[in-house]
């Protein structure tokens, strides 16, 4: 028994065993089946691509959050940072801080999508770095620093935009949100590519090993010669980078950067990570789990909307299923492991 689970842990692919050993994945499969039975058009490619596009925004941030949580940290600022980076991207794309409200898609005088993208991810990474610095140098717990960040970045965003949205980007930028490559939405492709990169980084590089070690036991990591502070700062840079990237994609998708974007995302994002099996106490978790967690949430929301379930009932059902999915996972693990 031991050897079989180990195999699957090492990445050997065996769908049945994977399903059996990882509760959330099984739940995801189950949900897809149920929703399809309820309304077969649920698995129309259009809808599947919709779901992929929808989870790509919080999913991207969740990838970065996986790094943070693996080190036993947390980042509550991601929703605000998303809004902030989106606003920065908009300002760069439109070439001014003016609260321009024009929807004219053609009259853009800004610096183009590339500059906007660059600005978003650089600002995101920098903001993450500053928070990481406060965490490691000022020794303030991540919860407090990023809670501060949550309100600071929101305030900055509102200040830049004076509360309003900045809208109307050129087609080349909008492609990142609404374009297709073949039948597949660009945001989904960006998300998938980012997930694969993150998986490789965590699973197959020194850096990834170091992240797990710092989360597993920071003191032992320090005594083993890891530069713990640098690694901690780096994970906040990474999540900031992803918040910036997600902001760019979201702005491109909505053709608008809003000051109120991303409110409450921190909880959705952290849920995706935690439902995916990453421990809030650090050291345990995987990118694959996060992707499944994000997909579970996305499928659940979409499926309930698809069936026009009242929004009150939706809340109740989503809450219960999230708990059940994780409970089921724990139950499976407690049976398989011993």
């Amino acid at each position, binding site marked *: 028994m031991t050897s079989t689970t180990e195999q699957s842990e090492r990445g050997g692919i065996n769908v049945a065993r994977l399903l059996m050993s990882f509760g959330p994945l099984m739940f995801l499969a189950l949900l897809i089946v149920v929703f399809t039975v309820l309304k077969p058009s649920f698995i129309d490619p259009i809808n599947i691509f919709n779901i992929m596009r929808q989870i790509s925004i919080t999913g991207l941030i969740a990838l970065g959050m996986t790094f943070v949580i693996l080190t036993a940290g947390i980042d509550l600022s991601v929703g605000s940072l998303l809004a902030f980076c989106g606003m920065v991207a908009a300002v760069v794309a439109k070439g001014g801080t003016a609260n321009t409200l024009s929807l004219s898609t053609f009259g853009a005088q800004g610096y183009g999508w590339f500059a906007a993208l660059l600005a978003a991810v650089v600002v995101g990474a920098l903001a993450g770095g500053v928070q990481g610095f406060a965490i490691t140098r000022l020794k303030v717990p991540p919860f407090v620093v990023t809670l501060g960040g949550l309100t600071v970045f929101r305030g900055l965003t509102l200040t830049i935009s004076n509360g309003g949205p900045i809208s109307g980007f050129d087609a080349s930028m909008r492609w990142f949100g609404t374009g297709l490559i073949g039948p597949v939405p660009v945001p989904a492709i960006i998300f998938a590519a980012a997930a694969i990169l993150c998986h490789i980084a965590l699973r197959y590089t020194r850096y990834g090993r170091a992240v797990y070690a710092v989360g597993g036991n920071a003191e032992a990591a320090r005594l083993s010669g890891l530069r713990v502070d640098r690694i901690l700062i780096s994970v906040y840079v990474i999540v900031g980078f992803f918040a910036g990237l997600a902001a760019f994609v979201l702005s491109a998708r909505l053709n*608008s950067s*809003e000051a109120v974007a991303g409110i409450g995302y921190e909880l959705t994002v952290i849920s995706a990570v935690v439902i995916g099996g990453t421990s809030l106490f650090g050291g345990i978790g995987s990118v694959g789990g996060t992707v499944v967690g994000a997909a579970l949430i996305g499928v659940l929301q979409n499926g309930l*909307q698809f069936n026009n379930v009242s929004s009150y009932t939706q809340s109740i059902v989503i809450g219960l299923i999230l708990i059940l999915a994780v409970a089921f996972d724990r139950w499976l693990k407690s049976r398989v492991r011993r």
Partner: protein
Amino acid sequence: QDKLTILGSVPSLGFPFFVHMLNQIKAEAQAQGVNLVESDGQNSAPKQTADIEAALVQKVNAIVISPLDVNALAPAIEQAVQAGVPVVTIDRRVDGVEGILAHVGADNVKGGEAEAQAMVAAFPNGAKIFHLQGQPGAGPAIDRNKGVHNVLDPMKDKYQIIFEQTANFARAEALSVTEAGLAANGKPDAIICANDDMALGAVEACAARNFTDVKIYGFDALPEALVAVRDGKLAGTVEQFPGEQSRTAVQIAVAYARDKTEPKEKLVLLTPVVIGKDNLDKAERLGETK
């Protein structure tokens, strides 16, 4: 004598609608030569209550407020009235508190009704409708929803709401909710939204599926929505004249605070208007569009 000071309080500066409202209050206060204490309710009744309490300690001369919730803000407003501070309410009317100086508003229920009627007028032979509601439990969401249903419920056979979901007043959510609705139900004839942000999100969702002839209705008449109406992307948006409401309210409050001038009318109701392509000039904020 010192300059008068008034409190201007709006429910949430996270929404452009209220940003505009507060800006207009600011502008009018400047024009009247009074100091303004600004308050952002941050979408929380206790926060707006606390702001009123703080203002009372500072002895403001008058209060101009758009209450987040007409019930939950009643005790705070009552407290102000009892302290002898004149209160003018904007947009949402607080019942049951005696002694409010005046109310200036355009009822959200009426706005919802107007929105639905505009849709009915566009589809005299009936229509399949998506309805995107605002944040569950929030005052304007409740009222606008009520208005829409007041009109459509009696004509259920002709005007079917086949998909009704909340999108929390947010553009991103409206986009994904509409996407799900379109995938599940195909193309509707019209989408009624409880604010412009959601309407603009629905526009993006329809555009992505090339459903350009769906008639989408918004609410609030934000400049961005006006542009969308002009460009034919939105069928209409409900104008409640928040600027005019705000300025009028400040005028009434200041006049009373200066020399006890009673307002001519205690109840100033502006009729909400659905702005379409043909009556764009009626929109208050047309000047802000480019």
